């Protein structure tokens, strides 16, 4: 390439924002003039082109190896305790598998709650931490018993401050009962006569009645990070917590990928997959480049929902019958394909390896198409 052609080609390359900022920083520091800056920028562009993956490079294989080799060094079946209060958090290999398999139920859902500036002090933090723990009637009473002769349920209360709250929530949840307060007891009497079995059932239902707090959150832990207070919770309920007045709704987040997907959308889910996977790897002292994690999370969210890496997700959705059959559940895929008269177009890598053709990757990805001018005369 002549030098002239080369420079005009470089002009068309758009550098990432971060690089442009850094070039500007160097320019100020070294006090470069306009032509020097242009020269410098062109050199950066040349290096940038060299560092870029070439078309046809099998980035997926590189990612798979770069993530799974370090993962073999991870601790198996262990739990990690965040702080002394003991919020149990899944980490290590089980957590990594959970993320990439996109499990519907997160084993240890956990929220990180940030507070708004005006509520960010020790007194408030404790009050909020206490108030969001989900409390049922069960957690607030001393004893519950059935009075079969009177056909009533008697609840013995320890803390008198909570009586009204309990009574209110029982009244709201059950329409066919009368609730009375007697010194240190709450008496629940059904309006219709009930048998022993039904009364027992009603008792269980009363015990499970939600009184205050946020459903799903079973414990909280107050932490100080830098100069602000942070709440960690066991259990998660992003929507309700974000709607709380004291909470900073811009930063509060949960580690449950599907919950983030439902409330904040697919792009936020991609971010949380990246964040959680990288965190899990780094906790174990494994240094995996963020680009690999980016590729995985992009593939997982490609279709607008969260797909797992595996049989029912990314690998199961491949177009080639032979590739799917070679991966898992061979007979199922082959039978289905033959019944439906499916065609394998041999466009992927695995099926071409099986057949012994050149794989469409690297230089094999490109074909030469020549356009012959029609012979006239």
């Amino acid at each position, binding site marked *: 390439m002549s030098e002239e052609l080369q420079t005009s080609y470089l002009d068309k390359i758009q550098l*990432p924002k971060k*690089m442009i900022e850094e070039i500007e920083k160097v320019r100020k520091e070294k006090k470069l003039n306009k032509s020097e800056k242009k020269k410098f920028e062109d050199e950066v562009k040349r290096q940038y082109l060299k560092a870029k993956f070439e078309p046809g490079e099998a980035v997926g294989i590189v990612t798979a190896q770069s993530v799974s080799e370090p993962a073999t060094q991870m601790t198996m079946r262990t739990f990690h305790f965040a702080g002394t209060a003991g919020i149990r958090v899944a980490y290590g290999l089980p957590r990594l598998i959970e993320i990439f398999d996109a499990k519907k139920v997160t084993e240890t859902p956990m929220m990180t709650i940030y507070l708004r500036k005006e509520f960010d002090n020790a007194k408030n933090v404790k009050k909020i931490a206490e108030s969001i723990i989900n409390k049922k009637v069960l957690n607030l009473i001393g004893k519950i018993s059935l009075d079969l002769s009177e056909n009533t349920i008697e609840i013995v209360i320890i803390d008198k401050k909570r009586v009204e709250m309990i009574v209110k929530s029982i009244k709201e949840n059950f329409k066919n009962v009368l609730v009375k307060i007697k010194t240190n007891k709450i008496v629940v009497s059904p309006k219709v006569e009930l048998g022993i079995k039904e009364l027992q059932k009603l008792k269980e239902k009363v015990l499970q009645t939600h009184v205050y707090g946020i459903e799903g959150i079973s414990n909280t832990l107050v932490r100080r990070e830098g100069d602000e207070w942070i709440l960690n919770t066991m259990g998660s309920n992003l929507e309700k917590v*974000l709607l709380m007045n004291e909470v900073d709704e811009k930063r509060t987040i949960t580690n449950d990928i599907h919950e983030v997907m439902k409330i904040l*959308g*697919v792009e*936020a889910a991609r*971010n949380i997959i990246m964040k959680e996977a990288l965190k899990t790897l780094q906790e174990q002292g494994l240094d995996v480049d963020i680009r690999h994690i980016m590729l995985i999370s992009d593939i997982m969210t490609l279709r*607008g929902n969260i797909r797992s890496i595996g049989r*029912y997700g990314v690998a199961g959705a491949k177009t080639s019958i032979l590739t799917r059959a070679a991966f898992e559940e061979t007979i199922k895929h082959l039978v289905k394909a033959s019944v439906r008269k499916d065609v394998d177009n041999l466009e992927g890598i695995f099926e071409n390896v099986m057949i012994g053709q050149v794989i469409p990757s690297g230089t094999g990805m490109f074909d030469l198409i020549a356009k012959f001018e029609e012979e006239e005369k």
Partner: protein
Amino acid sequence: MKHLDITKHEFVPKHIILSEKKKEEVLKEYKIKLKQLPRISISDPVIKILNAKIGDVIKIIRKSETAGESEYYRVVTRGEKV
């Protein structure tokens, strides 16, 4: 209760609906058809706020650790079950 605006959340990047003209430009630049773009479901919370239609192309400006800022495109689809 306060009003919740999820688009302000730090994990939610900026979503912009592209005009028909820009949409064509994007498809031409990458030399692809509409259905080859990554998808976003019409029931996605952010799409509901934007009020986009099926077939619209959404430009997403992500914060990226490696590039500072990066652009990504998704086409709005009916959404599929897992």
